[in-house]
């Protein structure tokens, strides 16, 4: 595990191959939980930890899993960690747990986790997979937090529940509702892809396109 490899994984997961705006995974939870910064923070930490630990575990036991049933085993391992997170939340942050409701359990279905397990942990060492899972979660977190800042600020006039804008401010009801996340995610994607395209232009001569299509299952339907 060389240092350059860890750095390139970090950069990939945060920017050039970000799970949200390049891979378009985990959109379901992006729509559901981002109208409130605190919930978003808890949720994204949960996803980051689950991805990290499940990638680690799956990478460690990858030789023992028959290819044909690997998906079932992956889901089993992922649900194990999600249940641990759910129990921890219920024990230490009961309010948040209640507000997030079914979404904690639905972390299991978050495509990012399965995507990393399939695309990375299958072919890499446990520690590197852990790092990859963690940074993927961070990339997810960065985008969701940015969206949540806009949504909570405009939707409630608060940040982390603290009043930021004057009471005369008229809240934008649409920001509390899921559709606004569609607009905002689209804008983030637009901005990020523009930035990457602008950067890729001068470097086009010497290097290929950095963002390859990930070999992951198709994005889940937004059922939440």
């Amino acid at each position, binding site marked *: 595990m060389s240092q350059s490899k860890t750095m390139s994984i970090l950069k990939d997961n945060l920017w050039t191959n970000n799970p949200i705006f390049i891979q378009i995974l985990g959109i379901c939870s992006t729509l559901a939980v981002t109208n409130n910064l605190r919930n978003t923070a808890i949720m994204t930490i949960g996803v980051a930890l689950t991805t990290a630990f499940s990638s680690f575990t799956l990478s460690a036991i990858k030789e023992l899993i028959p290819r044909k049933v690997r998906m079932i085993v992956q889901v089993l391992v992922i649900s194990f960690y999600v249940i641990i997170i759910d129990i921890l939340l219920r024990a230490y942050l009961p309010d948040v747990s209640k507000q997030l409701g079914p979404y904690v359990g639905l972390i299991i279905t978050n495509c990012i986790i399965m995507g990393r397990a399939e695309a990375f942990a299958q072919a890499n060492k446990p520690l590197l997979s852990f790092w990859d899972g963690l940074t993927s979660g961070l990339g997810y977190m960065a985008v969701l937090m940015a969206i949540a800042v806009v949504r909570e600020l405009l939707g409630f006039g608060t940040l982390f529940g603290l009043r930021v804008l004057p009471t005369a401010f*008229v809240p*934008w*009801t*649409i*920001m509390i*509702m899921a559709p606004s996340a569609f*607009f905002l995610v*689209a804008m983030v994607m*637009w901005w990020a892809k523009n930035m990457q395209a602008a950067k890729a232009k001068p470097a086009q001569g010497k290097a290929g396109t950095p963002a390859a299509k990930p070999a992951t299952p198709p994005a889940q339907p937004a059922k939440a």
Partner: protein
Amino acid sequence: MFQKQPMMRKVLYALAPIAAFSVYLYGPRVLVVLALSLGAGILTEYLFEKKKGGKVSEAVLVTGTLFALSMPPAVPLWIVVIGIVFAIFMAKEVYGGFGRNVFNPAIAGRLFVYISFAGVMGTSFYAPGNFGMAAGSLFGAPDALSAATPLALMRTGQSTPIVDLLLGMRPGAIGESSVLLITLAAAYLIITKTAQWRLILSTILGGAAMAVIFWSAGIQKALPLESLLAGSFLFVAVFMSTDPVSAPKKKGAQWAYGALIGTVIVIIRTFSLFPEGTSFAILIGNTFASLLDKLVTDATKRKQTRATVASQGNTGKEAAQ
């Protein structure tokens, strides 16, 4: 700076008397709303088109005017700016500008602000007449004077005199009131072949049919005649459902499109939380517009192949089998 679009100019000519009349109804504030809507709309489109090297379309003038006319008269000015910027930016330019937008931008902007600021928008209506003096002052009414629109009254079972509805002497959005002027505008647009009469007629027929069905089923809120005259039904039928970009192009599809919009308007007005359903109906119609076009095209194609097969006689039939 502007692209020349004679069709859009004709729509503007048709809107001018309506805008002038609304100044009489609600006072000079209307002009401020109009100016802001047009200014912010043009600026937004200009910033986008400048980057692409394109010209600002004259359609943005129509969008800006339609948007301004669909606002309640006492609308806070910052809401106008947010709405029109959203309309041009998110509903038009991100799709690639004029001619490529799936949804009618004016309606998208209107719905965005109506949903976001439902409380403010709902209390921004005031009584019409005498250049705004009927409500107290030349420059818009204070909050306490907000008036109930005919649609809001209908929900509680009251009705507004039909004559008032026809003349436009009732609270409502800035430009939706005068049935007379809108009908004249519709006639002008149809005669100059700017708007497709099928779209207007089918929307009205769809709405009327649905209202009659509801009314005869014993739902007192759906008064057939008032359903058509109150709210922005006619305004939307004439100016929004006929949007050449977001409406279907084939004959059969246009009938279905209008009927869909008309029925959805009445359904939403009768059963949803929002008193006005025209905007939702147009967006739903827009969603299905290209599908309807495709269905009609496919059907005609199938008919044609069948006809040619039949005319070719037995040999043709065998070949087709």
